[in-house]
């Protein structure tokens, strides 16, 4: 295709290349229809551009299937890995084998499933800013023995938060919530910080 050397963006007939490119790419009406009809340079350029943009449109139509990872994303969000602005769902925190804590009273016994404790833990964590459960929510493990509980809690913290202060706050909050709501005694809340998030959000 003949193009003036001093200005690569001009055709030999003196017309600028760019309006022709736009004309083809955007399917616009020609700016100078009379000139284009008779000018061999413009016609050659337009022919080549039409050819190329036919290919561009073919590429645009090419079918691209989203990978399975989309389902993985959905699953991870369901698992609460991604700082959900919502409560952890009961079925997600249910451990496979249900154990019961026991509250003995003079007039009978109250059995509290460990999954209930786990759910309360999830709720307590959810109420805190900058913190969410890491890993599978079922990784919240609750060991019960009589009226006492030990809780293991994998956490992800927002980048920039002090790990020590934050885990202290999480621990206090979890203990308070569990003890107030269940009447059980929390022996320990073991926190493991597994992840940070938000650091590279851009």
């Amino acid at each position, binding site marked *: *295709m003949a*193009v003036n050397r001093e200005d*690569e*963006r001009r055709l030999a007939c003196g017309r600028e*290349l*760019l309006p022709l*490119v*736009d004309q083809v*790419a955007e399917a616009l009406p020609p700016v100078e229809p009379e000139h284009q009809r008779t000018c061999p340079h413009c016609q050659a350029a337009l022919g*080549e551009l039409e050819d*190329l943009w036919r*290919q*561009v449109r*073919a*590429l*645009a139509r*090419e079918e*691209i*299937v*989203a*990978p399975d*990872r*989309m389902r*993985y*994303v*959905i699953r*991870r*969000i*369901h698992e609460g*890995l*991604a*700082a*959900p*602005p*919502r*409560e952890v769902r009961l079925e997600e925190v249910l451990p496979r084998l249900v154990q019961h804590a026991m509250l003995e009273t003079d007039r009978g016994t109250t059995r509290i499933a460990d999954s209930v404790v786990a759910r309360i833990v999830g709720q307590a964590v959810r109420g805190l800013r900058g913190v969410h459960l890491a890993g599978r929510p079922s990784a919240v493990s609750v060991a019960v023995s009589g009226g006492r509980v030990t809780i293991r809690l994998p956490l992800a913290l927002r980048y920039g938060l002090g790990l020590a202060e934050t885990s202290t706050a999480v621990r206090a909050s979890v203990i308070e919530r569990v003890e107030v709501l269940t009447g059980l005694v929390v022996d320990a809340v073991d926190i493991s910080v597994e992840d940070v*998030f*938000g650091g*590279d*959000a*851009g």
Partner: protein
Amino acid sequence: MDRKTDDIHLVSAAQRGDLIAFELLVRRYGTPAYRIALRILGNPTDAEDVMQDSLLQAWQALPELRDRRFFSTWLYRIVTNRCLNAIRSRRATEVLPNEIEDETRRPNHVTEARRQLQTLRRAIMRLTPEQRVPFVLRELEGLSYEEIAEVLGTTVPAVKGRLHRARLALLEAIGAWR
């Protein structure tokens, strides 16, 4: 209900924590998000990573999305930013992404049309990232200038300028204009 109105409902539901609503948004925009990443980055592995991280980031940042009409462009902005970051971080080790299946090396099995598409794909990969992003959004995804300006956080005239440069650069890359 048109798609934009539908989006607004889904986004507000998702912002209230409705997972099913977000899942619908992922099903609707996950594929274009992946397609955009694939065409900017040129290889499926990186594109999958970007798609995954972008969707998770979108879920986390969803409460910050004020104008619910703009979920798609907001998501695409996350995607393109992540693509540009990925390109910047690999630039040191890789001159050109060349992991696209190179069909030109198996000439016997390839039709002329496929060979042309392959040449075009590689020419697009030779654009600078700054040119490639608007080119992909406009020519391959069919976004409007306004939507692209929204994605890139810039103005419509700036988008047009970048597209002009991208198109001319493509002509050069494809060898049409020498």
